[in-house]
Structures are given as C-alpha cells and as structure tokens.
C-alpha cells in the first residue's frame, strides 16, 4: 500500500466519495429490486424528490439544517477528544429554552424574537452539555456514559414539562401553546415562492453561520488551536498552557449550544410549539454526519446535505412507489453510511492501482 503513491487530491476528496455513494445506491438498488420494484425509477424519484422541485428542495434543506447543527455538535467535541452522544438530549432541552422565551414574549415581531430564540435555545442546550462536560473535566466521569444517560434523563424531564406544565388546558395534543405567527421564524417560501410551503426557514442561515463559525473556530482561532491540541495530546496541551478542564467544559457547552439550534429550527420555525420528541433522532444522525464529514465543517455540510436528501427523497419514494416503505429507506440510509463512511476506503486500493498504472505508463 505504502509503496504506491498516494491518490491525487481530487480523487481523494471528490471522486472517491462520489463512487462510494454510487456503490451504496447500487446495494440499495438490490434491495429495491428484491421487492420487485424498479431501482432506476426509485433513484430517479429520490433525486427528483430531493432536488427536482422547489418544495422538495425546501424539505431537503430543512432536514439538512437539523443535521448540520447535530453534526457540528459531535464534530467539535471530537476535535477536543470527546465523543458527544448527547446531541439528542441537548437539542431537546434547547427546545425548552426556545419555547420559554417565545411564550414569555409571544407576539413580538420575529426579527426580535429570532435572535432571542437562538440565545435561549443555545443556553439551554449548552446547559445540558455543560453538566457532562463538567463531570468529565472535574470528576473524570466518562463523557460517553454521561451523555447517553442525559439523553434518557432529557426524555423524562421534557415529558414531564410538556405534558404537565406547558400543555395548555383543553388541548389534547402533548404540546405547548403555539407561538404566534408573527413571532415565528419565517419560512423561506415567504421570501422565495420557489420553496413553496416547505418548512425550510431562516434557521438555515443560522446553520450556515454556524458552519462558518465552526470552521473559523476550529482552524483559525486560538480556542480551536487549544481544542485540537487537547484532542491530540492532553499532556502537550497542558505544557502549552492550555487548561484541559476549561477547554472540556467550554467545548461541551458550545456543542450543546449548537445542538440547541436544532430546536430553533423546529420549535421556533417549523412547528411553532414544543412537542414531545420533536428531535426525532436528529441527534443520532448527527453522529453519522460528523464522522462521515470527518469532523470538518465542509464535510459536515456535505454529509448533512446527503442525509437531508435521503430523508426527503426517501419520503418522496414512499409516496410515489407504495411498494417501498419507510423502513426500506432507513435501510438504504444505512447502506450510505456504511459505504461512504465506514467502508469509505474500499475502493481506494483499486483506485490506487489504477492511478499507479497510469502513472507508470506515463513515465517511460
């Protein structure tokens, strides 16, 4: 392996991932074939559903927004040497922050409300990540356990708060009172009719800002430098005068704040109220997104988009091809994660051979 020259950069960062996605779809296609459906048609439907028309694009972007936040929440922690499995719970708690401020000031114009919701979603999410961070830094409690447990605790706590405290009288659904229309984050469709009535809303701008911010934070700030030093080598970090305790706690809090943005998108934008279990697994998808994006904001953005497209294209598929159910789509997603993520290097060796031969053929 090492005797060969490494792959050209464009192959590494462009061709290989694309081939991997194609491979994943090939395997997914076999499953589609197995249930007697036409895989080509299925791919067509998916692509059309995800990117073919305005509303579809809007849905894709809506999911992408969630996954960007969740993915960044995992990535950032990873750079500091931690594995944050708690995005789910952090986002859930973020929802509490968003709804509390929104209901307290219900009726305020969204231009004022939007930033407030961001702040409160971030604060509450950050709080839920701060505790595991603190326990890791000060007490050595393994962050993986504590964040897993905090997901479970969030479920109980939020279920109590929603059904017993926030739920208005006489309402059947398990949800809080609604945020007034004027206070909600506007949908993109209100500015560009292209997006139709899709749920994509201005939160996506927050996601883009978050991406840029994280990119800057990780690679261009002193904090990011310290974070990465800690993640690579805690002893050297201490040598460099970097406080591990402080870094762990702050990094986790930032991660939680990012996860809390999932709530801004959903509670403040799409649903306009706090409903039970609104995070719906986005926190876990974030793990896959972060790792597939190799912790790099650009990678995270791309893999979040891939997952967004899979979610939206998948639902289009379920709609247009009734033989294909939502479980099949989950299965295809699994294939994509497997082939583009975990088995991403499967085609590397054949490709290397190919490029090697070309290289030697080129030189007499």
């Amino acid at each position: 392996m090492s005797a060969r020259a490494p792959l050209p950069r464009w192959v590494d960062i462009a061709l290989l991932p694309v081939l991997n996605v194609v491979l994943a779809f090939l395997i997914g296609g076999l499953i589609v074939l197995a249930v007697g459906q036409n895989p080509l048609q299925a791919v067509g439907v998916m692509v059309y559903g995800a990117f073919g028309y305005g509303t579809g694009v809007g849905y894709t972007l809506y999911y992408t927004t969630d996954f960007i936040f969740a993915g960044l929440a995992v990535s950032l922690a990873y750079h500091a040497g931690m594995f944050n499995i708690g995005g789910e719970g952090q986002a859930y708690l973020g929802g509490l922050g968003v709804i509390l401020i929104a209901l307290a000031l219900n009726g305020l114009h969204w231009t004022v409300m939007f930033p407030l919701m961001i702040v409160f979603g971030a604060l509450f999410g950050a709080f839920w990540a701060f505790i595991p961070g603190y326990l890791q830094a000060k007490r050595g409690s393994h962050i993986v356990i504590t964040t897993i447990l905090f997901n479970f605790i969030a479920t109980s706590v939020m279920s109590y708060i929603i059904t017993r405290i926030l739920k208005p009288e006489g309402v059947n659904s398990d949800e809080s009172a609604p945020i007034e229309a004027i206070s909600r984050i506007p949908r993109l469709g209100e500015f560009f009719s292209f997006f139709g009535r899709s749920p994509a809303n201005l939160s996506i701008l927050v996601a883009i800002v978050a991406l840029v911010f994280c990119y800057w934070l990780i690679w261009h700030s002193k904090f990011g430098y310290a974070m990465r030093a800690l993640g690579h080598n805690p002893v050297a970090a201490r040598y460099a005068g970097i406080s591990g305790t402080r870094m762990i706690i702050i990094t986790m809090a930032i991660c939680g704040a990012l996860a809390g943005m999932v709530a801004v998108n959903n509670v403040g934008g799409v649903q306009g109220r706090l409903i039970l279990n609104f995070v719906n697994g986005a926190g876990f998808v974030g793990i896959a997104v972060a790792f597939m994006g190799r912790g790099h904001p650009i990678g995270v953005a791309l893999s979040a988009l891939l997952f967004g497209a899979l979610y939206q294209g998948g639902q289009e598929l379920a709609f247009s091809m009734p033989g294909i159910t939502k479980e099949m789509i989950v299965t295809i997603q699994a294939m994509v994660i497997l082939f583009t993520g975990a088995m991403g290097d499967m085609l590397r060796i054949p490709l290397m051979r190919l490029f090697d031969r070309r290289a030697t053929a080129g030189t007499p």
Partner: protein
Amino acid sequence: MQYYTDLILILDSTVRLAVPLLLACLAGLYSERAGIVDIGLEGKLLGSAFGAATVAAVTGSAWLGLLAGIGVALCFSAVHGLASINLKGNQTISGVALNFLAAGLTTFLGQAWFQRGGMTPQLGNDQRFTPITLPFANELADVPIIGGLYSELISGHNILTYFAFIAVPLTAFVLFSTRFGLRLRAVGENPKALDTAGMSVTRLRYQALIITAILVGIGGTYLSVAQSSGFNNNMSAGRGYIALAALIFAKWRPWPALLVCLLFGFLDALQFRLQGIDFPVIGQVPVQAIQVLPYLLTIILLAGFIGRAVAPKAAGIPYTKER
C-alpha cells in the same frame, strides 16, 4: 417477612432485567478489549432478536431461533469487521450504520414475511425459552429464608439467564487465564506488540468479534424468544447503549460488568415499584422523577466514586501496518 418476599421478587425482576444488558455488555467487552469499539451493539441486539423470533416462529423451535439470533449477530459482526478491520474504516460510523441497518431491515423483512408491521408471530410457550425449575425448588419453597431465595430467585429462570450468569466467570477465566485471553487483551492495548511477535492482529480481532456476536445474539434472543414472546419494532429500546455505558462504568472488566448490570436492573425494578407510591414527607412525586432515578443514581455513582475509566488503549484505532 412481607418485605423479605418483596425483596426477593424485586431481585428476581432485577435478574430478568439485567440479563440482556449483561449479555450485550460482555459482548462489548470482548470486542472493545480487542480494540474494536462497538456502538452497534444496539443494532446487533435488535437484529438478533428479530432473527431469533422469526426462526422460532417458523420452525417452532426456540433453539433454532437461538442459532438464528446468533447467526444474525455474526453477519452484523462480519460487516463490522470488514469495515473496521480490513478496510480500516471508522468503527463508530460502522456501528451507527449497523444500528440504522437493524432498525430498517428488521421491520422491512418482518413486514414482508409476516405482514404484521414488522412484528413476528406470537410464540407459544413451546417455542420459547421458559423458566426452568431447578431440582428441589418446589420442595424447598416453604423453608424460611433460603427457601424463597432458592425457589424464587435462583430457580425459575430460563436457560439463557443461567448462561448469562455463567458467562461472567467464564469471561473472567478466558480473559485472564488463557492464551487467547492474553492475546485478546494485548491486541486491544498494543496491537503492534502482537504483530511483532508474529501473530495476526486481524485474526484475533475477528475471533473477538465472533464471541461478541455469540453473546449479543443470545442477548437478542433473550429479548424476543425468552423474555417476551415475539419480536416487535425497536424492541431493544436503547439497551445496546445502556450496555455500552455499563461497560465503561465497569471499566471493561467482567465481574464489575455483572455488578453494574445488576445495579441497572435493580434500579429499574425498584423504579416500577416506587411509581405512584406516597412517600413520607414529600407525598406523591411525579412519575418522571422516579423514572430518572436510575440514571441520576448512575451519574452520582460515576462522579462520586468510580473515577476515571481508561479504555483499552488501541480501542477505536484501526491497526495499519506499513508493508
């Protein structure tokens, strides 16, 4: 006396709740000790629960179901191994993928085969692993103290439960007193040490994954063919993650793993009993407050007494050797 009987019953429940966790936890122990992080335990549990229930329902044999449960887990392990050992992919992604795969595939196939929305047909008692009465359990039942202990707590579980408990000393023995265990632990700490001693890291890691599959396969089977009669969607309900937490809590050691799993089981069993009870002084508390108790207690224990857990050094890092 009533309290004693209650205690026995709660402990009995503790055992039943702990078994799937314990099996998954020991399964994870083998793979992580060999240097392979397995966040896919959840998916493996679910997948093998499905495989076991399906085959048990179709053939009518719980034992064949068990084989199928293990078989499914083996397939999952093979994928995990291919991705993370041969292709040196990221073990976490591979595990997450397996979790997705299990969630999607079980319901999809279940629906295709049984048309019951992913549920498998309900299993009759002869298609399940049912409680075994140990010798003299009935005779001793009336003896005070130990009678109840023996006939309720020790006797009257299904065979998989006994296996799970035997697996603990067995694991301790394999890990610390056999050649295989020595190498297994070494490969998770410093695979290069093995490689330079002329042993195949790949082979050992696959062996570990096979054991992982067997254990977690039994765990999945327990869920669908012993504890309940038949599979339904997502019935693993996060047990794989809890098992992972238990593994870290136990610092990757078999006896502590047993204790931690029993603790989790006990807190759950207790929690069921405490719901709706009027407590002295505070009175009724919201049921959610009781339900978070196990998690809170775990966190307090972790932060207060357990200290730092140091994972096997090579865990999560693919072994690459330049050739």
